[in-house]
């Protein structure tokens, strides 16, 4: 099943995920699922780190000035990260606490 970022809403990095910078972008590791994923663009790493400060992915990319040509690839990448629970919807964690 493909997750569409438009329907995800407010996002954040999962608290049990570590992100390690690498020359190509970053590696993200989920301690719960033991999944390792590649963030293959340095600006995608910035986007992922900034998700929790913005209403959704689009406004995050607006705030970081992501180029038009990268928005599509980043949307697909973040959808994959959501599928892997590397990023999660914010209300599922915070609105309840």
């Amino acid at each position: 099943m493909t997750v569409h970022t438009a329907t995800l809403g407010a996002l954040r990095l999962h608290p049990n995920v570590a992100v390690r910078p690498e020359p190509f972008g970053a590696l993200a590791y989920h301690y719960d699922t033991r999944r390792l994923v590649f963030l293959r663009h340095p600006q995608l790493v910035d986007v992922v780190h900034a998700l929790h400060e913005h209403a959704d992915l689009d406004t995050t990319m607006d705030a970081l000035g992501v180029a038009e040509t990268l928005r599509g690839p980043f949307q697909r990448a973040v959808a994959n990260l959501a599928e892997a629970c590397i990023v999660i919807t914010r209300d599922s964690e915070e609105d309840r606490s």
Partner: protein
Amino acid sequence: MTKLADQMKRGLDAPICLTWELTYACNLDCVHCLSSSGRRDPRELSTDEAIAVIDELRRMQVFYVNIGGGEPMLRRDFFPIIDHATTSGVGVKFSTNGTYIDTDAARRLAAMDYLDVQISIDGADAATNDLVRGQGSWDTARRAMDALAAADFGEFKISVVVTRENVTQLDDLLAIADSYGAQLRITRLRPAGRGADTWHQLHPTDAQQRDLYHWLLERGDRVLTGDSFFHLNALGDPLPGLNLCGAGRVVCLIDPVGDVYACPFVIHDEFKAGNVRDPGGFASVWNSSDLFAELREPGSAGACASCGAYDACQGGCMAAKFFTGLPLDGPDPECVSGHGAAALAAATTAPRPDQDHSRARARAAAAAVPVTLGRR
């Protein structure tokens, strides 16, 4: 090669997958032991030194470490070491023969986060397993699995080195894993350590390699392989995983005395890059050793350059080539296009493993009663 694979070849800022053999001490004497384990090395890292290594790995953001040996649970500080790692964000996956996983140990392990346990067996029945791992080792491993299951550990792993004898039992091994709710992990037999002496009799035949490839294509999503069978990719569609030799690029090994080797399967001076006790510690070895820099240079395909399968198999496994005396820029000894057999025939000498921690008594007994393989 994808762009990502190219970037991997140039090396990462820290390893993805770090093997740390905690001790050369082992109560077993497996005929394929990569580290020729048996006796403890008196120069073994102290508890404080081991803790310092973990702290350094944490600073480098190494997500997890694969702990092995020897039998790592033989270290009296085994639990303090893994406790320190898992509570400071360095996950632990450790391999054990299961001897020391009793009810209490299983409960203790089950209570820890970020911990994976791999119990090693090398066959789907006692006869096949004990041939490689020694008499009684099957029962011991099953008792450990039972203890983990009884303690509600969750999904542990069952780790199998694929041999000529057990390659026909993969479905049975999967059934054993399923019966525990465990995950099966299968890896390639390497001619390293004591395996240098047994590899020629134990490695899968060409026909078995083809069967294994198709088995992995069908069931690859249910088993872990540590990406160790990428040499089989020359047979067709690639198997899942990173299709490259990660030595010094994304993987390396720390041995019990702190020596850092490029490849988890080559504990040999030629692939030693430094020691964690050196000034600058592990990070300095990883980031600036000459050996690792060399391994991150683009390699030449050598004798494989004219082979159409090179992009798929990348020339196979460096460790397998090294310990069978083959040139590192030539075909893998188990090359599925058939170039390995010719290369092996031309190889006159192979480097010997330059360390042996085997217990002398066990070695003498093994020499007196040679392991008889191919009993069926």
